[in-house]
């Protein structure tokens, strides 16, 4: 690191020196993305949606025959299929796109139902060019009455914790960066996306090494953390040294966000995709509530990671320095802390957490170029709820927002659940803008 190197004194010299930095940054970034994700869109023809219907009971798998499945697109029926003796079914498609797949419950045999009755229709099945997309309807032993309120609330609570885990990981980084630099980084969402997309590139893109997801996640997280450090030293630090105002920095960050998102769309493609590992896990019953193992792993790993971050902030020298810079930058600087290095480290940590959050989100939902932007609102809600610039508050805020958003589907249609995120945001700003755990200070 070239800490403390000063820019040359003349204005022209400074501009020339500086201009090479964003160019270098862009070259590195484009290179990384293009190499990793380019040929995704170059594939063969013949799209289909298909699957195998299997009924699981007591460890045995029995194929289910004679079940009708319908594929449609925006209300137009594309085709239907009936599962054969092996439980297999397939519907040919006119082309790549997003389709709705629904299962006719009345054609299921006696005593067989969907383990998750809400999954009777899969509203967003994305099919890439040439892809034979396989979808899964998990079937289990029939419960005649459907789900109880207890089960439904329990399942939504777990779903909320799962979503909250992603939000907490990503929002923590956003808040830490704000803490040490006072910058609301609108491009943080793209770090989330980049983590998920790079993991996909190493895992299932067909051009990468096709590692299992667990191993593919490691280089993805490292690359994004490296990219975060790069952003800090080649973009944000020179801008700070130039004395650019925070208002301008926020506009720069939103420009960066838009450029990165378009670049990822260009290289990765516009259609959402899913990781191959852990797809279609069937739910297990814990305390009578159906839970999917990968969701539990997500929640568990997140809690461990967040605990490690708190320990890092409380006990390590670097963590203490980070809190000192966040608390009073000038005081920290005058007590001998290298503020630039602390900020650099914060960026690396924040990018790492965001990438991890993105991979979990991709694992539980899907991977797309706009996934980060879609949860940006929820990140803001979590940050404002916990207190902008706090670390522990935002962790709690992330889980609270996740739970509220999922629980709101008890009253709201599922497609509108993010509205509750906006409601949290606005209510907090009206009632307690410094956040639940934020200290009272003048923020007007």
């Amino acid at each position: 690191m070239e800490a403390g190197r000063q820019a040359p004194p003349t204005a022209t010299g400074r501009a020339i020196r500086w201009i090479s930095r964003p160019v270098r940054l862009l070259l590195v970034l484009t290179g990384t993305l293009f190499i990793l994700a380019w040929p995704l869109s170059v594939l063969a023809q013949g799209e289909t949606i298909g699957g195998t219907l299997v009924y699981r009971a007591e460890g045995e798998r029995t194929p289910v025959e004679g079940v009708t499945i319908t594929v449609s697109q925006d209300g137009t029926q594309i085709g239907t299929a009936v599962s054969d003796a092996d439980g297999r079914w397939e519907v040919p498609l006119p082309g790549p796109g997003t389709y709705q797949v629904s299962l006719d419950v009345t054609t299921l045999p006696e005593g067989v139902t969907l383990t998750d009755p809400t999954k009777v229709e899969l509203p967003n099945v994305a099919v890439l060019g040439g892809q034979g997309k396989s979808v899964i309807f998990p079937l289990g032993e029939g419960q005649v009455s459907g789900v109880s309120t207890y089960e439904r609330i329990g399942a939504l609570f777990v779903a909320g914790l799962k979503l909250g885990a992603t939000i907490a990981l990503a929002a923590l980084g956003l808040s830490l960066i704000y803490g040490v630099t006072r910058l609301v980084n609108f491009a943080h969402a793209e770090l989330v996306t980049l983590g998920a997309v790079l993991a996909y590139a190493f895992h299932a893109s067909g051009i990468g090494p096709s590692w299992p997801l667990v191993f593919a996640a490691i280089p993805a997280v490292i690359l994004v953390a490296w990219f975060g450090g790069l952003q800090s030293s080649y973009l944000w630090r020179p801008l700070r040294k130039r004395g650019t105002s925070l208002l301008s920095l926020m506009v720069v960050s939103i420009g960066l966000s838009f450029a990165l998102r378009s670049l990822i769309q260009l290289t990765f493609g516009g259609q959402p995709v899913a990781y191959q590992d852990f797809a279609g896990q069937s739910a297990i019953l814990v305390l009578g509530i159906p839970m999917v193992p990968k969701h539990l792993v997500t929640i568990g790993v997140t809690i461990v990671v967040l605990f490690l971050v708190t320990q890092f902030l409380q006990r390590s020298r670097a963590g203490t320095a980070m809190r000192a810079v966040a608390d009073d930058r000038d005081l920290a600087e005058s007590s001998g802390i290298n503020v630039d290095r602390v900020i650099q480290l914060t960026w690396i940590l924040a990018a790492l957490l965001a990438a991890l959050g993105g991979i979990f989100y991709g694992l539980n939902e899907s991977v797309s170029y706009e996934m980060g932007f879609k949860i940006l609102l929820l990140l803001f809600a979590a940050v404002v709820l916990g207190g902008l610039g706090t670390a522990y508050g935002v962790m709690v805020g992330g889980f609270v927002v996740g739970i509220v958003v999922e629980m709101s589907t008890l009253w709201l249609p599922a497609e509108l659940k993010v509205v509750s995120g906006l409601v949290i945001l606005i209510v907090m700003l009206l009632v307690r803008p410094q956040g639940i755990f934020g200290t009272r200070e003048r923020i007007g």
Partner: protein
Amino acid sequence: MDWMQILAAGVLATIGPVTAGYALSAIGLNLQFGYAGLLNFGHVAFMLVGAYGTAMTVEFGGPLWLGLIVGIVAAVLLGLLLGIPTLRLRADYFAITSIAAAEVLRLVVRSSWSEPLTGGVFGLQGFGGAFHALNPFPTSELYGFGQFVVTGRALWVILVGWALVLLSTLLIARLIKSPWGRVLKAIREDEDATRSLGRNVFAYKLQALMIGGAIAGLAGILFALEQQSLHPDAFQPRITFILYVMVILGGAGSIGGAVLGAAVFNFLFFATDALMARLQANIDWIGAILSPAEAGLIKYVLVGVALMLLMVFRPQGLLRSRDEGRADAS
């Protein structure tokens, strides 16, 4: 390659209704961002609210003039609702809330839940009949020369659009030269100083947000009437970022800046688009690595990069010297 066609694409887009609409919306954003220093990252929401206000009123049997009023009032109300919780706080809180609100509004409008009112993903069509019935030009007749021709239908929209741009520019010029405008600029330069001089900073910011929002609402209405159809996904967040590039290109906080920025940007944007499309189709190695859709995406990457570079190197716009009316004055 036909350079004349590329030039024509750029020129027609520059004088066309699209530029008029963008210029109008940019005038609103310039008042908010350039003069009052409000970081409105959800500007597209005002256009959405205006357009849907008008279209829904007509759809439910109201006359067009009532629709126009409803659309503009809705945009003003959105400014009020967004401003009250956030404008008392630091600038970043308003930025956060505005970008969030814009996305949520788009999601609500396109949801199947609100489909009976807004048409959901299918949108609304054919509400602008009364507007096009006023057109004095024969619809299918061509006006212009050479490659540079527009239909009578487009000419009508162009005239109305640019008349609105002119009126709004005059309105903003009057407002900025008034005592009200001087207070607004004072707030941008130093909010605390203005407050300590006894001005109600919150009220001034809220007024700027509502007036700018009303002009953006008008821009949304113009787009909707021109297209004769309304679709929620036309109001993507990228519209806001394009507007920022326009405002900063022309010079944030200068009266004609927004219009100049919109014209220069749209010329470059559509000429690049036409150029990329031809490169993609005619040059083999470019055609091999880029599909037409991907060639179209490159310009959005450039928009983002342009926004960053402009904000850093020329926040005062293309024409002005560094010192007057700096948008990045802290």
